[in-house]
């Protein structure tokens, strides 16, 4: 009888432990620093590093991404000449940019940053009017990929917000007050480009100059 009671108590304790474990969300496996690396494209040993602070709801950021960043990725990042690091800088005037940054960071944590970033800028007009960002992200990913991103978005919201806040703080340290703000570093010297975006024609010539000198 005593043995049965003991086993019953042991079983209840084990069951309670299992329930508690299931109720506790798993710890986030990323930090602001690891997310920063996940939002970077190219080789960190590239001779040129470009840091951009941008807002997903900013039209100039969209134009810069589509007109300059995309060809730059094809011609300079993929060939190991440029290491491109994206940082979030959601502006207070944009109602949904923080949420968009949260989704993008969740996608970065899951390893799907590039397609989600592309989708957010491509469909900016749609989601910035309605705030419906999740369908835009879902359209860019497979169902299985979307489930991973959703899990991170729902369970690690505090860590995602911390990552966005970290990017914002870094930008404020550089006295950034508008987007996109772009900094080019080569041979230890960092040059701020005129804010608001730069055409690919001029960016290309500048990068070629830096690579040649």
């Amino acid at each position, binding site marked *: 009888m005593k043995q049965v009671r003991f086993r019953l108590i042991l079983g209840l304790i084990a069951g309670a432990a299992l329930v508690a474990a299931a109720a506790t969300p798993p710890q986030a496996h990323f930090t602001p620093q690891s997310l920063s690396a996940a939002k970077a494209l190219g080789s960190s040993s590239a001779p040129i590093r470009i840091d951009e602070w941008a807002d997903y709801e900013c039209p100039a950021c969209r134009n810069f991404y589509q007109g300059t960043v995309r060809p730059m990725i094809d011609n300079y990042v993929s060939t190991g000449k440029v290491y491109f690091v994206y940082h979030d800088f959601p502006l207070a005037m944009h109602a949904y940019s923080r949420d968009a940054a949260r989704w993008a960071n969740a996608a970065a944590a899951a390893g799907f940053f590039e397609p989600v970033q592309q989708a957010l800028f491509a469909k900016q007009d749609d989601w910035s009017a309605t705030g419906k960002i999740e369908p835009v992200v879902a359209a860019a990913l497979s169902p299985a990929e979307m489930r991973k991103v959703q899990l991170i978005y729902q369970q690690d919201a505090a860590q995602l917000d911390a990552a966005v806040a970290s990017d914002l703080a870094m930008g404020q340290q550089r006295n950034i007050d*508008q987007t996109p703000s772009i900094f080019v570093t080569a041979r230890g010297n960092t*040059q*701020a*480009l*005129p*804010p*608001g975006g*730069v*055409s690919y*024609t*001029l960016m290309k*010539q*500048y990068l070629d*100059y*830096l690579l040649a000198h």
Partner: protein
Amino acid sequence: MTWWLTLAGRLFIGALFIWAAYSKLRNPWMLFAMAVDSYQMLPIWAVEFVARTLPWAELVLGAMLIFGIWVRWAAVGTSAMLAVFVTGVVRAYAKGLEINCGCFSNNEPLTKFTIVRDATLLAISLAVAVMAFLAHRRARHSS
């Protein structure tokens, strides 16, 4: 008195233009081109042309004013350039473009102060040009 004012104006505008030229020429021309492009006034070929030539024009005109070479025409040149600059900054400000001036460096935001400053420089440059022409006419009549 007029002579001293003309000299002071000449040296001031001349030094400013040389400084503006130096601040642009010490960096690759593409950076100044990016600043010009941000005004959204010119096609890209014109942006590149302006970026490659304008700093040299500033340098030459500034040196002409400093060394007293063809002062009347140098002052007309600086006045024309400043008139274009004032037009550009007023237009950009009116359009709400949040850009950098590109006047002396890449990091100076375009504000109301930029308009006031450039308009003041234009007035000084015009005054130098007018006084230089008057002085030339007086010299011709007295000789």
